[in-house]
């Protein structure tokens, strides 16, 4: 983390963004581990994806490489597809049973 790698963009060092993204990722991971509502778990996954996106944009800015921003673009598309399919699964589960917390979903348990 020397000064040469620090993006001078409004003077904010890139490490601040990276630290913020790491904290946001940790919050998302923690929420994913402790919450039992499937929808809230999904939102926590979105938090983690956004933390990763912020990291990508920060590196694109620090390294002066547009590839990081393009990668965020792809991540957005994949996140949209993931949410669509995941919510479809949630709807399919909810149609069968009233309350689907993650603890109740043991249909595939051997």
């Amino acid at each position, binding site marked *: 983390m020397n000064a040469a790698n620090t993006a001078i963009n409004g003077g904010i060092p890139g490490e601040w963004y990276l630290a913020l993204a790491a904290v946001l990722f940790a919050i998302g991971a923690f929420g994913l581990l402790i919450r039992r*509502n499937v929808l809230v778990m999904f*939102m926590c996954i979105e938090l983690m994806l956004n933390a990763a*996106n912020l990291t990508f944009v920060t590196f694109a800015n620090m390294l002066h490489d547009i590839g990081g921003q*393009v990668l*965020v673009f792809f991540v957005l598309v994949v996140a*949209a597809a993931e949410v669509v399919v995941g919510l*479809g699964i*949630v709807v399919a589960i909810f149609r069968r049973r009233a309350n689907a917390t993650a*603890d109740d979903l043991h249909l595939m348990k051997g």
Partner: protein
Amino acid sequence: MLTAAGALFAAVSTSHVDYVSIGTFVVAAAIVLSGGIGVVVARNPVHSALMLVMTLFGIAVLFVLQRADFLAVVQVIVYAGAIVVLFLFVIMFLGVDREENIAVEPLRGQRPLAVALVALGFTGLVLLAEVSKWTTGAPSVSGSTDVAASNVSQIGKSVYTTYLFPFEVTAALLVIAVVGAVVLARRPPVASNAGSVPAGEVTEDVTGDDGSVSDRPVEEAFAASSPSESTDEASGEVTS
């Protein structure tokens, strides 16, 4: 405290900071973090979704601060506009906007374990950031962010030249996701094509709905409509 403030001031004064950027970063970071914590601790899923919107807007602000204008716009439109609306739609459609008691811990030792795991991962992340080097020295293959062209044209050029194949794969992925969502969200056979469905499956479906739910209006509507569908099917079979 004073020394920290002094160090911050020294860092600020040596690296030609404008205070507007610093202030924007601090405010956006506070919004992002409070929104993220709100998603996790809110008992009502609707509140979680609204907190998620707050976080996404904060991230969009941080994108603008880092000259990723196009991504900031896409973030607001796609994430806050489409994905969160999809979340809210599903929450309200399914009627799960009941408060969850998050004080009770059904799985013993889950939370200390979660704290330990997240602390471990976070420490590893910070250590990795401290130890490793950001740059490999390899030249950029996808274009620099420094050229005079606008952000949109840079991203567009990169997507359609360097990253053309991933872009095409993305298109295929979206089509697959749409088809998968339609297949998943389709009701189990209803009256329109009931003639091709064995009757046992329909009755099994009805008993499943009756046994599991009784207190929710949507499911009551389902349960109420299912017998009528089965009678429709029966009458249809009689007429055909």
